[in-house]
């Protein structure tokens, strides 16, 4: 999914356009450096992120909204586009440049759907793209917006020291206590020590053929990514700038409101706030930035 927007033009004042031209060049340089760095940590989303929301339902909707925003934003960035009508989030890499000398205008050259490693999703079918958007949404918010289930585990270390079966046992016991008979597709476990300190969390997804949850993502108390064994995974934040926010509702029982805010430079921090039937959760996550 790629769109060419060479005909889109937005006038700019001389001072602003000089500044923006410089920022664009710097941003492109930064993006290049960060992409180079990303070869090690696999986070191609580092180096300039803008979060927007839209009433997007199809891959084309996500691309069009990112493109439309970029005509005003006028920087080469990767968009995190959060849908407010379905539990999907897409990453769209948008690049453009100022064209003309006397009255430069920002022209969007391309807008490409990418995965979290920066690979183009252009060759994927729309259902496959949407499956990735759905997974991206869960990883961004830390829960399934269709049915956010957050289980707090206290005083037992984090998931890194536990087998899959022990994790499943914890989940199962929680289901029993909460009278849940239909396992939700994803469960987020938040771990706390005996003093209530945050030890991070992990998300597990349900395998309906084995009736067992499997690990898909972990993060520490600062929101930095951890693997299945609780070990750090690369440096998510190198340099760059992240702005934007998304607000939306959940899409099922138990989900009421979601907020995602990304701010910062060098260290970008996202704060996810969830209010729902399963209880409120405020979770800090260090996002690609």
């Amino acid at each position, binding site marked *: 999914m790629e769109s060419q927007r060479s005909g889109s033009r937005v006038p700019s004042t001389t001072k602003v356009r000089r500044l923006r031209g410089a920022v664009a060049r710097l941003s492109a340089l930064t993006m290049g450096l960060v992409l180079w760095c990303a070869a090690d940590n696999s986070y191609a989303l580092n180096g300039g992120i803008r979060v927007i929301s839209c009433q997007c339902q199809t891959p084309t909707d996500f691309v069009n909204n990112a493109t439309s925003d970029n005509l005003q934003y006028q920087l080469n960035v990767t968009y995190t586009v959060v849908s407010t009508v379905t539990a999907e989030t897409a990453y769209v890499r948008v690049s453009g440049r100022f064209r003309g000398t006397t009255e430069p205008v920002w022209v969007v050259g391309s807008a490409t759907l990418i995965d*979290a490693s920066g690979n183009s999703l252009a060759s994927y079918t729309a259902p496959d793209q949407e499956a990735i958007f759905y997974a991206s949404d869960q990883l961004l918010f830390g829960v399934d917006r269709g049915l956010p289930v957050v289980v707090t585990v206290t005083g037992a270390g984090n998931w890194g020291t536990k087998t899959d079966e022990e994790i499943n046992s914890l989940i199962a016991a929680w289901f029993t206590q909460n009278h849940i008979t239909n396992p939700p597709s994803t469960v987020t476990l938040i771990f706390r020590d005996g003093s209530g300190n945050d030890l991070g969390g992990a998300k597990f997804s349900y395998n309906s053929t084995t009736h067992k949850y499997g690990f898909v993502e972990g993060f520490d108390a600062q929101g930095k990514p951890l693997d299945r064994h609780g070990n750090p995974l690369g440096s998510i934040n190198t340099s760059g700038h992240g702005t934007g926010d998304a607000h939306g509702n959940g899409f099922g029982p138990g989900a009421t409101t979601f907020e995602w805010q990304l701010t910062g430079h060098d260290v970008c921090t996202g704060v996810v706030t969830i209010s729902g039937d399963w209880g409120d959760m405020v979770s800090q996550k260090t996002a690609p930035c």
Partner: protein
Amino acid sequence: MKTPWIGSAAVLLGVLLMGWRYSSHGQQPPPPPPHAAIPVAQSASFVPQPEKRMVARAAVAASSPHDYRKEFPAQQDYWAYAQQLLPRARAGDADAQFYLGKILSFCGSVNRGFFEHQRQKITLDEALQLAAERYFSLEQVQTLYTRCHGFQTEDVSSWGSEREWFNKATDAGQPAASASIAADILWRQYLETYQKAGGHPELGPPVRPGADLDALLLTAARSLDPEALYMIGKVKALQQQMAHSKDATEEYAWTLVACQRGFPCNGNFDWITTGCPNCNPDNPTPENSLMADLTNRGGNNNWAAVQQRAQQINASLEAGRWDELGLNSTQVAGN
């Protein structure tokens, strides 16, 4: 709706226990006679060349002197039974390979889930104490101990893994193994989606490099083997999950077809008491039990649609109209 002992204890056991795709039937009356060999032979003319080879092997496998669909449900001690299966499996008996893989999968998970704590083996008394704290059925834990304890005390590392046995059985065209491998492939693809989204799931080695998911499912469907048809229902559930659809019609329709053709969907079979939280073992018919499960699931799913789809599937299976089964994948490739 539910018997008192089942309810939430069932779901937590179901969540904890893996392997009810390789459903263990427990000590129950034997299911109806297998349907596999005759329909496969009748439908051979519809089968593409690579599949013909698998079907021919399936026919050979079906001629095994052992009727595993009767033999397996009668077992109390899977360790003892596995010792009988091992030489047969090594001798190339595809059904023995499948059931051995199924037991290794099930008991591995049971022992890690119930009879280990913080990665250390624990005694039955300790396991029962832990189970009580977690609201598990103590009776069920005792049963699981009987079934799988031998695997905890003996070294079976030289036996080969469950995946190896499933793949060998699949090589020989064993239909339930084919469907189980298809489910494993699909789950791996599901995890890969999370990887593309920035997650870090543990993918493990490829399930069956070069495998054709559609062909595996077709092998399973053509066999008319109830266990294989049940597994197709599980594959459908996973596909539904991957598309984040709430419509469970396909999953339940295939499961209903499996029930109608002899897969146990009521009674105290292990897969019902552990893997089907809303099924009622006391329901007089398998259909009623499955309907109760669907109804308790909520959402917009309706039983009439499931029945209608099951009717279509049955008609297509009987007529050998394989292309009408909806088994061609559009969103999955490779493994």
